[in-house]
Protein backbone atom coordinates (compact mmCIF):
# COMPACT_ATOMS: atom_id res chain seq x y z
CA UNK A 1 0.00 0.00 0.00
CA UNK A 2 1.74 3.16 -1.11
CA UNK A 3 0.96 6.52 0.38
CA UNK A 4 -0.97 9.12 -1.59
CA UNK A 5 0.83 12.44 -1.89
CA UNK A 6 -1.38 15.52 -1.56
CA UNK A 7 -0.48 19.20 -1.64
CA UNK A 8 -2.68 22.13 -0.63
CA UNK A 9 -4.82 23.79 -1.87
CA UNK A 10 -6.88 20.63 -2.28
CA UNK A 11 -9.29 20.40 -5.17
CA UNK A 12 -12.56 18.48 -5.28
CA UNK A 13 -11.32 15.95 -7.84
CA UNK A 14 -8.41 14.90 -5.65
CA UNK A 15 -10.69 14.64 -2.65
CA UNK A 16 -13.29 12.58 -4.51
CA UNK A 17 -10.64 10.05 -5.49
CA UNK A 18 -9.80 9.31 -1.82
CA UNK A 19 -11.22 6.25 -0.10
CA UNK A 20 -11.46 5.37 3.58
CA UNK A 21 -8.31 3.71 4.89
CA UNK A 22 -6.09 5.48 2.33
CA UNK A 23 -2.81 6.68 3.75
CA UNK A 24 -1.97 10.22 2.74
CA UNK A 25 1.13 12.38 3.08
CA UNK A 26 -0.03 15.99 3.13
CA UNK A 27 2.16 18.97 2.30
CA UNK A 28 1.30 22.66 2.18
CA UNK A 29 -0.66 25.05 4.36
CA UNK A 30 -3.07 23.99 7.12
CA UNK A 31 -4.68 25.97 9.94
CA UNK A 32 -5.04 24.89 13.57
CA UNK A 33 -8.28 25.59 15.39
CA UNK A 34 -9.93 24.03 18.43
CA UNK A 35 -13.16 24.64 20.38
CA UNK A 36 -12.77 28.34 21.22
CA UNK A 37 -11.48 29.30 17.77
CA UNK A 38 -14.33 27.42 16.10
CA UNK A 39 -16.89 29.34 18.09
CA UNK A 40 -15.34 32.57 16.84
CA UNK A 41 -14.89 31.38 13.24
CA UNK A 42 -18.54 30.43 12.93
CA UNK A 43 -19.66 33.68 14.59
CA UNK A 44 -17.70 35.61 11.94
CA UNK A 45 -19.22 33.47 9.21
CA UNK A 46 -22.77 34.01 10.48
CA UNK A 47 -22.20 37.78 10.66
CA UNK A 48 -20.75 37.85 7.17
CA UNK A 49 -17.39 39.07 8.45
CA UNK A 50 -13.93 38.19 7.15
CA UNK A 51 -12.28 35.10 8.59
CA UNK A 52 -8.55 35.03 9.50
CA UNK A 53 -7.97 32.78 6.49
CA UNK A 54 -9.78 32.01 3.23
CA UNK A 55 -12.07 29.00 3.63
CA UNK A 56 -12.39 27.75 0.02
CA UNK A 57 -9.94 24.86 -0.38
CA UNK A 58 -8.59 25.24 3.16
CA UNK A 59 -7.66 22.49 5.63
CA UNK A 60 -8.32 22.81 9.38
CA UNK A 61 -6.28 20.79 11.87
CA UNK A 62 -7.87 20.28 15.29
CA UNK A 63 -4.79 20.79 17.39
CA UNK A 64 -3.40 22.86 20.24
CA UNK A 65 0.37 22.44 20.36
CA UNK A 66 2.54 22.33 23.43
CA UNK A 67 4.69 25.48 23.82
CA UNK A 68 7.50 25.94 21.32
CA UNK A 69 10.90 25.30 22.93
CA UNK A 70 13.70 27.69 21.93
CA UNK A 71 15.19 26.93 18.54
CA UNK A 72 12.23 24.83 17.39
CA UNK A 73 9.45 25.56 14.88
CA UNK A 74 6.70 24.26 17.14
CA UNK A 75 6.12 22.03 20.17
CA UNK A 76 4.44 18.64 19.99
CA UNK A 77 1.33 18.93 17.90
CA UNK A 78 -0.93 15.88 17.62
CA UNK A 79 -4.68 15.98 16.94
CA UNK A 80 -7.42 16.57 19.50
CA UNK A 81 -10.81 14.80 19.57
CA UNK A 82 -12.75 16.04 16.54
CA UNK A 83 -16.26 15.34 17.83
CA UNK A 84 -16.21 18.54 19.89
CA UNK A 85 -16.10 20.52 16.64
CA UNK A 86 -18.96 18.61 14.96
CA UNK A 87 -21.51 21.37 15.53
CA UNK A 88 -19.36 23.87 13.64
CA UNK A 89 -18.02 21.78 10.77
CA UNK A 90 -21.00 21.66 8.34
CA UNK A 91 -21.27 25.47 8.21
CA UNK A 92 -17.53 25.79 7.53
CA UNK A 93 -17.67 23.11 4.83
CA UNK A 94 -20.70 24.79 3.25
CA UNK A 95 -18.48 27.87 2.96
CA UNK A 96 -15.74 25.93 1.18
CA UNK A 97 -13.59 24.23 3.83
CA UNK A 98 -12.08 21.28 1.94
CA UNK A 99 -10.84 19.00 4.70
CA UNK A 100 -10.52 18.58 8.43
CA UNK A 101 -7.87 16.70 10.39
CA UNK A 102 -8.29 15.35 13.91
CA UNK A 103 -8.87 12.11 15.76
CA UNK A 104 -12.01 10.19 16.64
CA UNK A 105 -15.56 9.89 15.42
CA UNK A 106 -17.64 12.52 13.61
CA UNK A 107 -21.42 12.68 13.83
CA UNK A 108 -23.83 12.01 10.99
CA UNK A 109 -24.26 15.69 10.10
CA UNK A 110 -20.50 16.00 9.44
CA UNK A 111 -20.51 12.79 7.41
CA UNK A 112 -23.47 14.09 5.36
CA UNK A 113 -21.75 17.44 4.93
CA UNK A 114 -18.64 15.66 3.60
CA UNK A 115 -20.81 14.06 0.93
CA UNK A 116 -22.70 17.25 0.06
CA UNK A 117 -19.57 19.42 -0.07
CA UNK A 118 -17.09 16.83 -1.39
CA UNK A 119 -15.04 17.32 1.75
CA UNK A 120 -12.87 14.77 3.54
CA UNK A 121 -12.08 14.05 7.19
CA UNK A 122 -8.62 12.73 7.95
CA UNK A 123 -7.17 11.29 11.14
CA UNK A 124 -3.69 12.31 12.21
CA UNK A 125 -1.88 10.03 14.66
CA UNK A 126 -3.32 10.67 18.09
CA UNK A 127 -0.57 10.83 20.65
CA UNK A 128 2.27 10.71 18.09
CA UNK A 129 2.69 14.42 18.60
CA UNK A 130 6.48 14.73 18.60
CA UNK A 131 6.56 12.84 15.30
CA UNK A 132 3.96 15.18 13.78
CA UNK A 133 5.96 18.20 14.99
CA UNK A 134 8.78 17.07 12.69
CA UNK A 135 6.46 17.57 9.69
CA UNK A 136 5.85 21.23 10.58
CA UNK A 137 8.32 23.47 8.78
CA UNK A 138 6.79 26.87 9.59
CA UNK A 139 4.29 27.99 12.21
CA UNK A 140 2.73 31.38 12.80
CA UNK A 141 -0.16 32.57 14.95
CA UNK A 142 -2.56 34.41 12.63
CA UNK A 143 -5.50 35.05 14.96
CA UNK A 144 -6.50 35.29 18.61
CA UNK A 145 -3.13 34.86 20.33
CA UNK A 146 -4.95 35.32 23.66
CA UNK A 147 -6.31 31.81 23.20
CA UNK A 148 -2.82 30.42 23.79
CA UNK A 149 -2.65 26.80 22.65
CA UNK A 150 -6.09 27.33 21.09
CA UNK A 151 -5.03 30.28 18.89
CA UNK A 152 -5.33 29.90 15.12
CA UNK A 153 -1.99 28.98 13.60
CA UNK A 154 -0.94 28.79 10.00
CA UNK A 155 1.33 25.77 9.57
CA UNK A 156 3.40 24.76 6.57
CA UNK A 157 3.69 20.99 6.71
CA UNK A 158 5.67 18.47 4.72
CA UNK A 159 4.55 14.86 4.39
CA UNK A 160 2.22 14.89 7.35
CA UNK A 161 0.93 11.30 7.76
CA UNK A 162 -2.88 11.05 7.62
CA UNK A 163 -5.51 8.37 7.13
CA UNK A 164 -8.85 8.96 5.38
CA UNK A 165 -11.69 8.37 7.86
CA UNK A 166 -14.70 9.93 6.09
CA UNK A 167 -14.63 10.13 2.30
CA UNK A 168 -16.91 11.98 -0.10
CA UNK A 169 -19.19 8.94 -0.49
CA UNK A 170 -20.39 8.79 3.10
CA UNK A 171 -18.10 5.96 4.22
CA UNK A 172 -16.52 5.79 7.68
CA UNK A 173 -13.34 3.85 8.41
CA UNK A 174 -14.09 3.60 12.14
CA UNK A 175 -17.46 1.98 11.45
CA UNK A 176 -16.08 -0.29 8.76
CA UNK A 177 -13.26 -1.46 11.04
CA UNK A 178 -15.59 -2.73 13.76
CA UNK A 179 -17.97 -4.31 11.25
CA UNK A 180 -15.21 -6.38 9.71
Amino acid at each position, binding site marked *: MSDIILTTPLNKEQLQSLKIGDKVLLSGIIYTARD*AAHKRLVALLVNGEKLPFELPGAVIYYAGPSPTPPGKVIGSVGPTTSGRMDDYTPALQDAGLAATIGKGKRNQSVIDSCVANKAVYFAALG*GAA*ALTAQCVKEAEIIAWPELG*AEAVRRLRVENMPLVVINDTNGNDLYIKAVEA
Partner: protein
Amino acid sequence: MSREINVKDITAAITNLAISSNRKLPDDVANALTAARNNESLPLAQTTIDDIIKNQQIAADQKLPLCQDTGMAVVFLEIGQQLQITGGDLTEAINCGVAQGYTDGYLRKSIVSPLKRENTNDNTPAVIHTNIVPGDKLKITFVPKGGGAENMSRLAMLKPSAGIEGIKRFIIDAVREAGPNPCPPIVVGVGIGGNFEYAPLLAKQALLRTIGSKADDEDIAALETELLTAINKLNIGAQGFGGKSTALAVHIATAPCHFATLPVAVNINCHVARHQSVIL
Protein backbone atom coordinates in the same frame (compact mmCIF):
# COMPACT_ATOMS: atom_id res chain seq x y z
CA MET B 1 11.71 8.14 65.68
CA SER B 2 10.67 10.42 62.89
CA ARG B 3 12.42 11.58 59.74
CA GLU B 4 12.10 15.06 58.28
CA ILE B 5 11.67 16.09 54.69
CA ASN B 6 11.59 19.67 53.45
CA VAL B 7 8.85 20.73 51.05
CA LYS B 8 11.54 22.19 48.77
CA ASP B 9 12.70 18.67 48.00
CA ILE B 10 9.15 17.68 47.19
CA THR B 11 8.75 20.62 44.80
CA ALA B 12 12.00 19.71 43.05
CA ALA B 13 10.94 16.07 42.71
CA ILE B 14 7.55 17.02 41.24
CA THR B 15 9.21 19.39 38.75
CA ASN B 16 11.46 16.59 37.50
CA LEU B 17 8.66 14.04 37.36
CA ALA B 18 6.38 16.39 35.40
CA ILE B 19 9.00 16.85 32.70
CA SER B 20 10.40 13.33 32.49
CA SER B 21 7.06 11.50 32.67
CA ASN B 22 5.83 13.55 29.72
CA ARG B 23 8.86 12.68 27.60
CA LYS B 24 9.37 8.99 28.32
CA LEU B 25 6.96 6.10 28.63
CA PRO B 26 7.37 3.47 31.33
CA ASP B 27 9.28 0.44 29.96
CA ASP B 28 6.31 -1.89 30.37
CA VAL B 29 4.14 0.36 28.18
CA ALA B 30 6.85 0.67 25.52
CA ASN B 31 7.36 -3.11 25.52
CA ALA B 32 3.64 -3.75 25.28
CA LEU B 33 3.43 -1.49 22.22
CA THR B 34 6.27 -3.38 20.55
CA ALA B 35 4.54 -6.68 21.30
CA ALA B 36 1.28 -5.31 19.86
CA ARG B 37 3.12 -4.30 16.69
CA ASN B 38 4.58 -7.77 16.27
CA ASN B 39 1.16 -9.32 16.77
CA GLU B 40 -0.48 -7.29 13.97
CA SER B 41 -1.02 -8.60 10.46
CA LEU B 42 -2.99 -5.67 9.05
CA PRO B 43 -0.56 -3.34 7.19
CA LEU B 44 -2.34 -0.14 8.30
CA ALA B 45 -2.22 -1.29 11.94
CA GLN B 46 1.47 -2.16 11.61
CA THR B 47 2.52 1.19 10.18
CA THR B 48 0.33 3.02 12.70
CA ILE B 49 2.00 1.35 15.68
CA ASP B 50 5.39 1.81 14.00
CA ASP B 51 4.75 5.56 14.03
CA ILE B 52 3.63 5.43 17.67
CA ILE B 53 6.91 3.68 18.53
CA LYS B 54 8.93 6.11 16.43
CA ASN B 55 7.30 8.97 18.33
CA GLN B 56 8.94 7.74 21.55
CA GLN B 57 12.42 8.05 20.06
CA ILE B 58 11.70 11.49 18.59
CA ALA B 59 10.33 12.76 21.91
CA ALA B 60 13.46 11.55 23.70
CA ASP B 61 15.90 12.92 21.10
CA GLN B 62 14.16 16.26 20.66
CA LYS B 63 13.23 16.71 24.33
CA LEU B 64 9.59 17.14 23.33
CA PRO B 65 6.54 15.80 25.15
CA LEU B 66 5.25 12.52 23.68
CA CYS B 67 1.83 14.11 23.30
CA GLN B 68 0.85 17.78 23.05
CA ASP B 69 -1.78 17.05 25.68
CA THR B 70 0.50 16.92 28.68
CA GLY B 71 -2.49 16.26 30.84
CA MET B 72 -3.90 17.21 34.16
CA ALA B 73 -1.35 16.50 36.87
CA VAL B 74 -2.54 13.64 39.06
CA VAL B 75 -0.26 13.04 42.04
CA PHE B 76 -0.37 10.01 44.33
CA LEU B 77 1.46 10.33 47.62
CA GLU B 78 2.28 7.49 49.97
CA ILE B 79 3.37 9.23 53.13
CA GLY B 80 5.19 7.20 55.75
CA GLN B 81 3.58 7.79 59.13
CA GLN B 82 6.97 8.44 60.72
CA LEU B 83 7.71 11.21 58.27
CA GLN B 84 7.48 14.85 59.16
CA ILE B 85 7.04 17.34 56.34
CA THR B 86 8.69 20.66 57.15
CA GLY B 87 9.31 24.08 55.67
CA GLY B 88 5.84 24.86 54.32
CA ASP B 89 2.54 23.67 52.94
CA LEU B 90 2.60 20.29 51.19
CA THR B 91 -0.18 21.07 48.70
CA GLU B 92 1.46 24.36 47.79
CA ALA B 93 4.79 22.60 47.35
CA ILE B 94 3.24 20.12 44.91
CA ASN B 95 1.48 22.80 42.88
CA CYS B 96 4.66 24.82 42.83
CA GLY B 97 6.45 21.80 41.33
CA VAL B 98 3.71 21.35 38.74
CA ALA B 99 3.87 25.02 37.70
CA GLN B 100 7.66 24.87 37.49
CA GLY B 101 7.73 21.61 35.54
CA TYR B 102 5.08 22.64 33.04
CA THR B 103 6.83 25.95 32.45
CA ASP B 104 10.45 24.74 32.32
CA GLY B 105 9.55 21.66 30.28
CA TYR B 106 7.53 23.56 27.66
CA LEU B 107 4.51 21.46 28.54
CA ARG B 108 1.00 22.53 27.62
CA LYS B 109 -1.09 24.24 30.27
CA SER B 110 -4.53 22.75 29.84
CA ILE B 111 -6.29 23.51 33.13
CA VAL B 112 -9.25 25.92 33.06
CA SER B 113 -11.99 27.01 35.43
CA PRO B 114 -14.95 24.71 34.78
CA LEU B 115 -17.58 27.29 33.82
CA LYS B 116 -15.77 30.35 32.53
CA ARG B 117 -13.06 28.14 30.97
CA GLU B 118 -10.31 30.55 32.03
CA ASN B 119 -6.86 29.01 31.92
CA THR B 120 -4.91 28.95 35.18
CA ASN B 121 -1.79 29.35 33.00
CA ASP B 122 0.49 27.04 34.95
CA ASN B 123 -1.42 23.74 34.79
CA THR B 124 -2.29 23.88 38.47
CA PRO B 125 -3.99 22.75 40.57
CA ALA B 126 -2.95 19.13 40.60
CA VAL B 127 -5.36 16.42 41.71
CA ILE B 128 -3.67 15.00 44.82
CA HIS B 129 -4.42 11.66 46.46
CA THR B 130 -2.69 10.90 49.76
CA ASN B 131 -2.35 7.67 51.59
CA ILE B 132 -0.70 7.24 54.99
CA VAL B 133 1.45 4.12 55.10
CA PRO B 134 3.92 2.57 57.56
CA GLY B 135 7.53 3.74 57.40
CA ASP B 136 9.40 7.02 57.02
CA LYS B 137 9.54 7.42 53.26
CA LEU B 138 7.54 9.48 50.78
CA LYS B 139 6.58 7.85 47.49
CA ILE B 140 5.42 10.25 44.79
CA THR B 141 3.74 8.99 41.65
CA PHE B 142 3.11 11.53 38.91
CA VAL B 143 0.44 10.79 36.31
CA PRO B 144 -0.14 13.29 33.49
CA LYS B 145 -3.65 12.34 32.37
CA GLY B 146 -4.85 13.52 28.97
CA GLY B 147 -8.37 14.79 28.36
CA GLY B 148 -9.21 12.56 25.39
CA ALA B 149 -8.93 9.30 27.28
CA GLU B 150 -10.36 10.72 30.52
CA ASN B 151 -13.50 11.81 28.64
CA MET B 152 -14.17 8.22 27.62
CA SER B 153 -14.17 6.93 31.23
CA ARG B 154 -17.35 5.69 32.92
CA LEU B 155 -18.88 4.99 36.33
CA ALA B 156 -21.97 2.85 36.94
CA MET B 157 -23.80 1.98 40.11
CA LEU B 158 -24.96 -1.42 38.90
CA LYS B 159 -27.55 -3.52 40.63
CA PRO B 160 -25.89 -6.40 42.50
CA SER B 161 -28.12 -8.70 40.44
CA ALA B 162 -26.23 -7.57 37.31
CA GLY B 163 -23.43 -9.81 38.57
CA ILE B 164 -20.29 -10.67 36.71
CA GLU B 165 -22.04 -10.65 33.33
CA GLY B 166 -23.32 -7.13 33.93
CA ILE B 167 -19.83 -6.00 34.93
CA LYS B 168 -18.28 -7.46 31.79
CA ARG B 169 -20.93 -5.90 29.57
CA PHE B 170 -20.44 -2.47 31.13
CA ILE B 171 -16.65 -2.59 30.67
CA ILE B 172 -16.78 -3.81 27.07
CA ASP B 173 -19.50 -1.31 26.17
CA ALA B 174 -17.40 1.53 27.60
CA VAL B 175 -14.48 0.50 25.37
CA ARG B 176 -16.73 0.02 22.35
CA GLU B 177 -18.37 3.42 22.77
CA ALA B 178 -14.98 5.07 23.25
CA GLY B 179 -13.88 3.60 19.91
CA PRO B 180 -11.05 5.62 18.37
CA ASN B 181 -11.43 8.65 20.65
CA PRO B 182 -9.05 7.76 23.53
CA CYS B 183 -6.12 7.04 21.17
CA PRO B 184 -5.94 3.25 21.21
CA PRO B 185 -4.10 0.99 21.94
CA ILE B 186 -5.51 1.81 25.37
CA VAL B 187 -4.97 0.60 28.91
CA VAL B 188 -8.25 -0.19 30.66
CA GLY B 189 -8.31 0.47 34.40
CA VAL B 190 -11.29 -0.99 36.24
CA GLY B 191 -12.45 -0.45 39.81
CA ILE B 192 -15.08 -2.83 41.13
CA GLY B 193 -16.63 -2.22 44.55
CA GLY B 194 -15.93 0.44 47.13
CA ASN B 195 -18.49 3.21 46.72
CA PHE B 196 -19.41 6.11 44.46
CA GLU B 197 -16.07 7.95 44.83
CA TYR B 198 -13.80 5.04 45.60
CA ALA B 199 -14.46 2.88 42.51
CA PRO B 200 -13.03 5.50 40.09
CA LEU B 201 -9.99 5.92 42.30
CA LEU B 202 -9.41 2.17 42.21
CA ALA B 203 -9.75 2.30 38.42
CA LYS B 204 -7.18 5.05 38.14
CA GLN B 205 -4.76 3.25 40.44
CA ALA B 206 -5.23 0.10 38.37
CA LEU B 207 -3.78 2.00 35.39
CA LEU B 208 -0.48 2.25 37.24
CA ARG B 209 0.03 -1.49 37.58
CA THR B 210 2.85 -2.93 35.48
CA ILE B 211 1.54 -4.26 32.17
CA GLY B 212 2.01 -7.99 32.05
CA SER B 213 1.75 -8.37 35.84
CA LYS B 214 -0.98 -10.63 37.16
CA ALA B 215 -3.70 -9.62 39.60
CA ASP B 216 -3.20 -11.22 43.02
CA ASP B 217 -6.60 -12.85 43.00
CA GLU B 218 -6.84 -15.76 40.56
CA ASP B 219 -10.45 -15.08 39.57
CA ILE B 220 -9.65 -11.43 38.89
CA ALA B 221 -6.60 -12.43 36.84
CA ALA B 222 -8.79 -14.74 34.75
CA LEU B 223 -11.39 -12.00 34.32
CA GLU B 224 -8.69 -9.59 33.11
CA THR B 225 -7.50 -12.08 30.50
CA GLU B 226 -11.04 -12.80 29.36
CA LEU B 227 -11.86 -9.09 29.02
CA LEU B 228 -8.63 -8.30 27.18
CA THR B 229 -9.35 -11.04 24.67
CA ALA B 230 -12.92 -9.84 24.16
CA ILE B 231 -11.83 -6.20 23.80
CA ASN B 232 -9.16 -7.06 21.25
CA LYS B 233 -11.79 -8.84 19.18
CA LEU B 234 -13.79 -5.61 18.83
CA ASN B 235 -11.45 -4.73 15.95
CA ILE B 236 -11.24 -1.08 16.94
CA GLY B 237 -7.46 -1.43 16.68
CA ALA B 238 -4.67 1.13 16.93
CA GLN B 239 -6.17 4.62 16.44
CA GLY B 240 -9.49 2.97 15.57
CA PHE B 241 -8.20 2.01 12.12
CA GLY B 242 -8.92 -1.69 12.76
CA GLY B 243 -6.79 -4.62 13.91
CA LYS B 244 -6.08 -6.55 17.09
CA SER B 245 -4.48 -3.81 19.18
CA THR B 246 -7.43 -2.11 20.85
CA ALA B 247 -6.03 -2.56 24.36
CA LEU B 248 -2.62 -3.35 25.79
CA ALA B 249 -4.01 -4.48 29.14
CA VAL B 250 -7.06 -4.67 31.38
CA HIS B 251 -6.25 -4.08 35.03
CA ILE B 252 -8.88 -4.62 37.69
CA ALA B 253 -8.75 -3.49 41.31
CA THR B 254 -11.48 -4.48 43.75
CA ALA B 255 -12.72 -3.45 47.18
CA PRO B 256 -15.60 -4.61 49.35
CA CYS B 257 -18.84 -2.68 48.91
CA HIS B 258 -22.20 -2.26 50.64
CA PHE B 259 -24.47 -5.26 50.03
CA ALA B 260 -26.98 -3.03 48.25
CA THR B 261 -24.43 -1.72 45.74
CA LEU B 262 -22.15 -2.76 42.89
CA PRO B 263 -20.09 0.24 41.75
CA VAL B 264 -18.00 -0.29 38.61
CA ALA B 265 -15.67 2.34 37.18
CA VAL B 266 -13.71 2.23 33.94
CA ASN B 267 -10.83 4.67 33.59
CA ILE B 268 -9.22 4.59 30.16
CA ASN B 269 -5.65 5.52 29.42
CA CYS B 270 -4.29 6.15 25.94
CA HIS B 271 -1.20 4.52 24.46
CA VAL B 272 0.73 7.45 25.96
CA ALA B 273 0.16 5.76 29.33
CA ARG B 274 2.43 8.02 31.33
CA HIS B 275 3.35 7.64 34.98
CA GLN B 276 6.55 7.86 36.96
CA SER B 277 7.42 7.42 40.62
CA VAL B 278 10.17 8.44 42.98
CA ILE B 279 10.82 7.60 46.62
CA LEU B 280 12.21 10.33 48.86
